């Protein structure tokens, strides 16, 4: 986009939050307490699907310190981000094990906790919907009797009364049915995995008070402060301006803190005690199952190709297990349809993506928003097709890789600006994984090493009017404060925005002060910190704010220096004459207004204001999916090399490779952190993680002891990360989003490598030695 050599952008500037975090002094939302703070704890359902016949609170009231008990009839309405189908507190019936049924408010947490054990809830059990397959059967019990009657909050959601379908998104591009018949080679394969959890190390936590003026003051670890305002307004009738939300730094989120669950509960709790300050913090077990988790999936992929391997037709059926409520799973259903093919050019596409109700804990966004899931299904199918065609898996991917000029499943036309270069990514990944040295080799007695690869893509499916803003103010020493509502979740967004500003103003990072806390009353509106959208939206806003500030600085400097603003440039803490940089005025002399030696002052302080809103995005057509769902597609390739013991199917991950084209990389080190951390998360999920349900729909592993994850030392021995930087014309300094991408291809490439090692199709996750053993007894690949 520009040949300018950057001074800060593209450099590994140290994260502005690292030193503070290393001392333990950062206060996360749960780290505050003041005398008088009251504590709320939840009574949760012991049944996965049952009528509530009675709730007896007599014994609970006897616990000293208990001040209020709130049950579902206090608020017998439904809320939700896409479809309003979830009562914040269950009333009439419960739909998942762990669902909130009552709130106890007490002086101390231990009192509230004790009281929760004394509430007696009587249930009348209902038949359980324990899988998406079962949910789909004609005579299946209904999780929601009246799904079609719920209020739609956004347009692209299609619930069906009389079924367990919470939404159904269709893609119809080209003519799949006819073309499929003519394909020389076809393949059909099925995939599945259970729901699982984010396990952000900080459990969800919030505190709410309602002050005598009616202001509702919320402190929370949320990715969506402005959505909290909207929810309290939309469903609880609080004037939107009367909801003030504060978000400190967050201890990991991964999408799980994007939806609004705790804040309305804490609001009801505070209301029940006359507006006093009430804290609601999830225990780990509640955070895992009472709060939303990650979707499960059953998928069928059909690919049709020529003998040479050119894809002609693809059909994708995705059944997303959204659990008891649609929440963001309805959006994930849509996102999975939008990018259903993976990064491949396929002229004839048919996709049915269903959001399916079950009696499982409800699911919400998870880093990748459906893409790790669909990529697993698509990339496993690509490998199986390559085998069938006897083509090298990389070759098959290169033949079909999507490029500028092609169209996406929703028929968006791709250009060199809105999509990265997938072919460069795969060639680089191929080098890093040393593909040409062989995909498989025997490495010892009963040991085999093998490699697997996956390509992936994702657009950022924001609201069509998603926006961000930034405000700059100056200090007397010429340094700058940056206020912006992008939330720091660990991804480094505050550092990135600081770098963008430093670059624009020609300043060092030491002169930029980024506010780490978000406060909805003084930070300009930002959609949410999700969908890898902050660098793009907030980055553009920061650039606009910097330009606005520069215009003001130049105007004052032009008066002082007696020249035209056009003669001036900015950098090194000065505004100076372009032809004679030694001649200029310090920013600190003009940033708060310039004062002449006579005492006369002009112009006043500089306040930079900037904003950016998504352009030209549209909803999808209900019948064909036609529409422009996102601004750009970042693309990438991941690969792993594993060593497997062929007797007991244990394995270690020797090498993990991620190559991403996310446009210009603002900070290579934070980008590397995101790629490695994402890949870890994808590999952890693929090797170990899932909820286990018994026949009553009760989750058996609700704690970290029996919910296995990769721990220290189980990560790949080598993590290689590289970037291809095809600039995005409209991104800040050419950047696209990258935050979620490291996770997307990881499960697929792991499954591909293990399948290749054993010559067995491994199409279920997680890939534990036991599940591999079971698969290897069954069908040969």
């Amino acid at each position, binding site marked *: 986009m520009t040949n300018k050599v950057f001074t800060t952008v593209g450099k590994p500037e*140290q*994260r502005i*939050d*690292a*030193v*503070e*975090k*290393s*001392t*333990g*002094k*950062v*206060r*996360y939302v*749960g*780290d505050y*307490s003041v005398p008088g703070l009251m504590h709320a704890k939840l009574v949760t359902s012991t049944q996965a699907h049952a009528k509530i016949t009675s709730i007896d609170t007599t014994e609970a009231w*006897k*616990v*000293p310190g208990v001040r209020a008990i709130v049950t579902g009839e206090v608020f017998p309405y439904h809320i939700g981000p896409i479809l309003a189908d979830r009562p914040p507190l269950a009333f009439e019936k419960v739909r998942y094990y762990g669902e909130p049924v009552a709130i106890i408010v007490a002086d101390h947490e*231990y*009192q509230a906790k004790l009281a929760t054990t004394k509430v007696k809830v009587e249930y009348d059990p209902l038949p359980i919907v324990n899988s998406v397959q079962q949910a789909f059967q004609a005579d299946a019990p209904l999780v929601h009797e009246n799904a079609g009657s719920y209020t739609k909050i956004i347009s692209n959601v299609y619930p069906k009364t009389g079924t367990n379908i919470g939404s159904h998104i269709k893609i119809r591009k080209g003519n799949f049915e006819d073309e499929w018949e003519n394909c020389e080679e076809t393949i059909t394969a099925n995939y599945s995995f259970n729901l699982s959890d*984010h*396990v*952000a*190390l*900080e*459990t969800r936590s919030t505190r709410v008070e309602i002050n005598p003026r009616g202001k509702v003051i919320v402190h929370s670890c949320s990715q969506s402060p402005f959505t909290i305002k909207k929810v309290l307004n939309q469903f609880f009738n609080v004037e939107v301006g009367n909801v003030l939300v504060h978000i400190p*730094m*967050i*201890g*990991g*989120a*991964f999408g799980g803190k994007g939806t609004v669950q705790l804040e309305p509960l804490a609001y009801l709790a505070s209301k029940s005690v006359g507006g006093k300050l009430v804290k609601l*913090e999830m*225990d*780990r077990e509640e955070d895992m199952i009472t709060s939303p988790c990650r979707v499960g999936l059953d998928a069928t992929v059909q690919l049709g190709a020529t003998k040479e391997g050119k894809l002609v037709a693809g059909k994708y059926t995705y059944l997303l297990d959204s659990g008891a409520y649609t929440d963001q799973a309805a959006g994930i259903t849509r996102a999975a349809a939008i990018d259903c093919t993976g990064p491949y050019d396929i002229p004839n596409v048919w996709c049915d993506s269903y959001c399916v109700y079950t009696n499982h804990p409800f699911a919400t966004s998870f880093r990748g928003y459906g893409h790790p899931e669909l990529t697993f299904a698509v990339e496993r199918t690509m490998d199986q097709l390559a085998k069938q065609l006897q083509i090298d898996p990389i070759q098959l991917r290169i033949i079909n890789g999507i490029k500028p000029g092609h169209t996406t499943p929703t028929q968006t036309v791709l250009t060199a600006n809105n999509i990265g270069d997938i072919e460069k990514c795969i060639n680089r990944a191929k080098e890093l994984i040393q593909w040409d040295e062989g995909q498989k080799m025997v490495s010892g007695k009963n040991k085999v090493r093998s490699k697997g690869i996956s390509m992936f893509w994702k657009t950022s499916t924001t609201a069509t009017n998603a926006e961000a803003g930034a405000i700059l103010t100056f200090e007397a020493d010429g340094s700058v404060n940056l206020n912006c509502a992008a939330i720091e*979740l*660990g*991804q*480094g967004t505050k550092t990135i925005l600081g770098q963008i500003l430093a670059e624009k103003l020609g300043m060092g990072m030491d002169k930029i002060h980024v506010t780490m806390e978000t406060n909805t009353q003084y930070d300009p509106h930002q959609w949410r910190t999700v969908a890898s959208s902050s660098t793009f939206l907030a980055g553009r806003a920061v650039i606009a704010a910097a330009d606005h500030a520069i215009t003001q600085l130049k105007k004052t400097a032009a008066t002082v220096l007696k020249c035209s603003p056009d003669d001036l440039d900015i950098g090194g803490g000065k505004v100076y004459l372009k032809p004679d940089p030694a001649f200029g005025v310090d920013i600190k002399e003009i940033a708060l207004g310039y004062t002449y030696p006579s005492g006369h002052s002009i112009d006043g302080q500089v306040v930079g204001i900037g904003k950016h809103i998504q352009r030209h995005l549209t909803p999808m057509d209900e019948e064909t999916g036609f529409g422009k769902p996102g601004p750009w597609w970042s693309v990438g390739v991941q690969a792993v090399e594993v060593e497997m013991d062929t007797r007991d199917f244990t394995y270690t991950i020797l090498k993990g490779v991620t190559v991403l084209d996310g446009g210009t990389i603002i900070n290579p*080190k*934070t980008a*590397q*952190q995101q790629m*490695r*951390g*994402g*890949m*870890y*998360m994808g590999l952890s999920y693929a090797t170990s993680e899932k909820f286990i349900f018994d026949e009553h729909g009760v989750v058996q592993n609700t*704690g*970290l*002891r029996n919910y296995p*994850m990769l*721990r*220290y*030392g189980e*990560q790949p021995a080598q*993590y290689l990360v590289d970037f291809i930087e095809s600039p995005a014309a409209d991104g800040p300094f050419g950047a696209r989003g990258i935050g979620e991408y490291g996770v997307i291809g990881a499960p697929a490439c792991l499954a591909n490598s293990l399948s290749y090692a054993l010559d067995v199709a491994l199409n279920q996750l997680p890939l534990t030695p036991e599940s591999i053993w079971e698969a290897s007894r069954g069908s040969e690949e």
Partner: protein
Amino acid sequence: MNSLSKTSKQLIQLHVNGETHDAVVRSADTLLIALREQLGLTGAKRGCENGDCGACSVLINGKPSHSCLSLAVEVIDQPITTIEGLMDSPVSKAFVDNWAIQCGYCTPGFIVNCHSLITTHPDANDELIEEWLQSNICRCTGYEEIREAVHTLLASGQTENE
């Protein structure tokens, strides 16, 4: 009538980071709760309160311990070190320099544990490092940068310097 109404609190003294502090605790209060709510030392985090994540790690008598698994009244005679007592430690610096911090929620627990590891075993090998650090969960980094930080520390011999 209710057993809980009889629960009494007692005044104890905790020896934390070289200072002695008064704390009023219930006998059921964990060291984690006492540190956080009585002493305002919130560097040790609640990650699971079940001994599974290491976010609450502190040193009791120089040994890394899950403060969520000790009762405050059990440790009144023992010196306790928390992350707040390791300000400017080489371990903190190594975590910063090696990009081993993202959200930072696991960081205090990891630093406390790593500090103890390298002081106890200045020549730790990979196997031993793994054994020690498997008690802590980091959900953000993928552990690679943490591994690099520990290796840098061990290689530089900065392990005695407190």
